[in-house]
Every structure is written in C-alpha cells, then in structure tokens.
C-alpha cells in the first residue's frame, strides 16, 4: 500500500475471494515463465513527499533560470510574463485532470475552451479554420507539410533558411516517411532570397515554407512570396510568432494557406522547452484534411447550445491508416493557457504589447550596434528579436556576460555556420530600458575585453 493505493488486509481478503484466487501472484500466472522478471526493479526505494520535494528543489537550484538572470535569450521560446490567472485556471481540477472529451455531455467546459481557442487563433492568423492545438511549433510545420502532401501529392518542399533550425530538421526527419524531398532556399541580406525561390519553384513543388518574423528576427514580405508560390500551384505554409500578430499583418490576409507556430509565448512557461502548444490554422479548403482535434458548435436534443469534437473521421481512432495524422493526445491544457492569456491581453493589449516590443527592440538594436565591435547582421525591420555580428568569439563574450548576470542571447553559430560571429538578441515586455542599457554596458565590456585578449594573443 502507498499513499495512492489503498488495499487493506480486509480489502484484499474480500477481493481475492470474489475473484476466486488465493493470492495476487496468481493473477500474473498468464505471464510466461520465460519473460518473468525474477528480481525487483533496480531502482532506489520510494521517498516521503517532503524528501522528494527537497530533491527536486536541489535539482532546480543547479539551473540558472530567467528568475536568476536578465535574459535576452529567445530563438523560438521567450521569457514573457505569465499572468497569475493562467496558473490558477490551469491548475483547477476540472481542467487539469479530465481526459479528451469523448463524452461531450460532461465535457462542455473543455470543449467550449477549445472552441474559444480556435476562434482566437483564427482571429490572430486571419484564417477561418483552426484546430484545438498540436504539440508545438516545429512538429506543426511537419504536420502542415503532411497536409500539403495529402492535398497535392507533389514530391518537393521548399523551405526558407529563415525557418527555425528545429523546424527545418523536423521537416527533414518526417519527410523521409512522407516520401518528399526538402530543399532549402538561402537568405539574402536577412530575408528569404526571392530570386532563388523563383528559380526553384516548379509544378512539382507541393509547398513553400517560411517563417514570420524569420529566425534572424527579420520581417518577411509574405505576400509576394505567397504570390510566387501560388503561380506554380504550391501551398504556402507560414510559421508565425503569435505575439507579433498584433502589429504584423495576419498571414491569412497575405495569401498564406496554412499558418502554424509555437504557442509558448501565449501564457505558457519556458519549462526547458515544453510542454507548450502548437497552433494550426488554414483556409476552408483544408478543413477536412486538418490534423488534430477540432471542436464544433451544435445543439442538444432540447435545443441547448453545446460543443462536440467534430470531423472525427479525419482522425486516427476512426480512419486509422488513412487518418490525416496520428495525433491522439494534443496540448489541451496548454491551449487553455493560451486562450486565457489572449483574453487577458485583449484586443487592445495585443497591439500594445506588440508596439512595446517593437519600440524596445529598435532601441536595443540601435544601442547595441553603436558599441565597438558590434554590428547589425542585417538591417531589416524587426519586431522582437534581431541579429548582430561581434568582432570577438561569441561564446566567450556570452560567458563574460553570464558571469555579470546577463544572458546576452543565442550564439547563431550553433545553428548557422555562415553566421558563426552572430548573436541573436530577443526582447520581451519584461525587458525594460534599464535592462537593455545594462545589456549594452555588459556586452560592450565583454566584447572589448575579448578583443583585447585576442589582440594580445595575435601579437
């Protein structure tokens, strides 16, 4: 017996008698001798709750989180402020502990949340149909590519090098199963090279994949890329940063067919990379091929308004090998966090937070690029993230900044060999002017110190 199971001696006697066996052991007789485990599981003994708590705290203390440093690290996940009502609502029993709503009469809470979430995503992306979430950003890009394959069966995908490296790699991994080839389109001065794209476009291209803003923080001209792609009958898949969609045009209004993205910035924690959620929205034409759960509005026998999982014939539990994806569990709780966050931000708030990031990002890029040995990697419009070049080894500069309590950003060389002197700096609404000024001071000092060191070595 443990704190979670409760079979007393009396219970055991009674239950064994009802079953008609003498011991619990007998219930495992159907396991053949050849595969029986003849020793205990080799794990330490169980611990009381307070000791487990102490151990998890000890492990937490060996991590430097956004609580302990001023962080400008982004590259796909961002240190945004998560309002307390999100924590409160996500921890309610009624949202935390039920299963997927297969009995809709007792799941109207969860189903209506999905419906409200789908509405919010449609509004943000400007596309009429959204599902109830997928796992996260990069796998959403992979799922969109599967939809393209099911739709036009073409063998090639073109993906901009501005798309997140994890999304590009996930796409390549999954494409092996789809039987499609993935070809990268290079960047030119910070954005997707349109001439290179036009050269590669042909009637065997199923989809063009781009990111907005791209990995280097630059705003792409989505509309003109979409036009070019459509001329050859390819679908346009855009991975968008949802919190920039208060200031940037909705992808649906720029010709995008499928808009996906990482939802972590919408009310979800960093959590060392997950769980978060991915969003997936598309034009009406693709409704019946969308992956994942979809909630739909309907009425009950008495005419009451209600919600159900709909179009389930797309899904694995019915269509099995001809399903539009294999998704069963999605990210319902994280999507709840997302829609609560978007309701909290509200219609004005999403514009204000976008404008705030826009202005501070501009200020940060101008201030930092004025430092000695620091240059803009590109000068394209940016919203919340930008790329710099340093005249000093980036990792060593980052180490110096970390020692001063600042995480200065992402070393681009970790993902792009062509930018091994690059630094990607992210701004959220939590980074004040004072924080940015401190970053400038610390970064400036670090770069100078490193240049001095290498100068000495060079002599």
């Amino acid at each position, binding site marked *: 017996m443990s704190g979670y199971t409760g079979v007393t001696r009396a219970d055991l006697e009674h239950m064994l008698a009802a079953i008609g066996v003498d011991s619990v052991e007998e219930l495992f007789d159907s396991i053949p001798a050849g595969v029986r485990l003849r020793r205990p599981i080799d794990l330490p003994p169980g611990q009381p709750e307070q000791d487990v708590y102490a151990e998890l705290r000890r492990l937490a203390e060996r991590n430097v989180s956004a609580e302990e440093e001023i962080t400008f690290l982004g590259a796909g996940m961002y240190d945004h402020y998560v309002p307390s009502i999100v924590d409160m609502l996500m921890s309610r029993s009624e949202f935390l502990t039920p299963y997927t709503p297969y009995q809709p009469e007792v799941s109207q809470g969860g189903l209506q949340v999905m419906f409200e979430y789908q509405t919010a995503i449609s509004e943000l992306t400007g596309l009429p149909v959204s599902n109830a979430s997928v796992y996260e950003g990069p796998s959403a890009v992979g799922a969109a590519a599967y939809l393209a394959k099911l739709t036009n069966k073409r063998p090639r995908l073109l993906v901009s090098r501005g798309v997140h490296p994890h999304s590009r790699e996930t796409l390549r991994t999954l494409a092996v199963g789809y039987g499609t080839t993935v070809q990268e389109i290079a960047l030119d001065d910070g954005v997707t090279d349109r001439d290179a794209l036009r050269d590669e476009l042909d009637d065997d291209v199923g989809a063009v994949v781009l990111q907005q803003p791209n990995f280097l923080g630059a705003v792409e001209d989505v509309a003109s890329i979409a036009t070019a792609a459509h001329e050859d009958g390819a679908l346009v898949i855009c991975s968008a940063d949802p919190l920039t969609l208060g200031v940037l045009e909705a992808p649906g209004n720029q010709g995008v067919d499928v808009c996906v993205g990482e939802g972590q910035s919408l009310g979800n924690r960093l959590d060392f990379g997950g769980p978060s959620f991915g969003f997936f929205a598309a034009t009406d034409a693709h409704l*019946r091929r969308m992956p994942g759960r979809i909630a739909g509005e309907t009425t009950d026998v008495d005419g009451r308004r209600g919600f159900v999982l709909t179009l*389930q*014939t797309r899904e694995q539990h*019915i*269509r099995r090998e*001809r399903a539009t994806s294999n998704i069963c569990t999605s990210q319902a709780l994280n999507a709840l966090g997302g829609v609560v966050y978007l309701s909290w931000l509200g219609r004005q708030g999403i514009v204000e937070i976008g404008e705030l990031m826009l202005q501070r990002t501009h200020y940060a890029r101008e201030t930092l690029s004025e430092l000695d040995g620091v240059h803009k990697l590109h000068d394209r419009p940016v919203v919340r993230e930008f790329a710099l070049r340093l005249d000093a080894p980036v990792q060593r500069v980052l180490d110096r900044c970390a020692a001063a309590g600042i995480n200065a950003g992402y070393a681009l060389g970790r993902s792009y060999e062509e930018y091994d002197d690059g630094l990607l700096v992210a701004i959220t609404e939590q980074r004040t002017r004072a924080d940015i000024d401190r970053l400038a001071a610390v970064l400036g000092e670090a770069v100078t110190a490193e240049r001095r060191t290498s100068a000495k070595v060079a002599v």
Partner: protein
Amino acid sequence: MADASYPEELLYHPDHDWARVDGDIATFGITWFAQSELGEVVFFDPPEVGTSVKANEFYAEVESVKAVSDVVAPLSGEIVEVNTALADNPEAINEEPYGAGWMVKVKLADKGEADALLGHEAYEDTLT
C-alpha cells in the same frame, strides 16, 4: 429509408454497391445495407469528372459521424457526371440510396463486366 429494399432492376456488388446500367452509361451508389451500417451520412467526397474507375476498386469515400467507408466501383469506366447535390444534402444517401442518393455516372469501358455482378436476390442472400 426506413425499410430494407433492393430493387430488382439493379445489379449489385458484394461490397454493398449497386449499378443501374442504361446503354453504355451506368449509375452507381451504395445499398440500403451499406447506409444502414454507416449511420447518418455527413459527407460524401466525390471524385472529379473524367476520372477513371476500375471495377472492384474504391473510387470515393462516404463518411458518417463515427465511420468512413470506401465506395467500391461495381464496373470500370470514366466518370461523366457526379451528384453535386450531395454536397449540401448528404442525407439523401440514407433517405433515397437508389434515387436522389446516386453518386456518379460512368461511361462503361466493358459492358461484359456486368456479368460478374449479382442480381437482387443473390445480393440479399449475402446479407444473411
């Protein structure tokens, strides 16, 4: 349609599809049994006019809330007409499987193939 019926002038495929042959054009649909197994039809996704269909192979899908079913072609040929009214009114497949619920009209490739199909009594025998 409330009661089972299998019109005698039609030909039947064992996978629960029917054909009405009229010269070298045939009309296809699914039988009463098929629609009853499926439940209320919510969606029919027709192929395009001009598509070739092959006898015994599936050419479309019909969906209810909880199931998807293949629609098998009883005979081979080229699709010359598709029942576009089913897009707004898929229930016709349940209500009038042999009438307003027709699915496609096909120009037959080989009328001899009809010999392999079942008459209404032989088909009804397969259902018991």
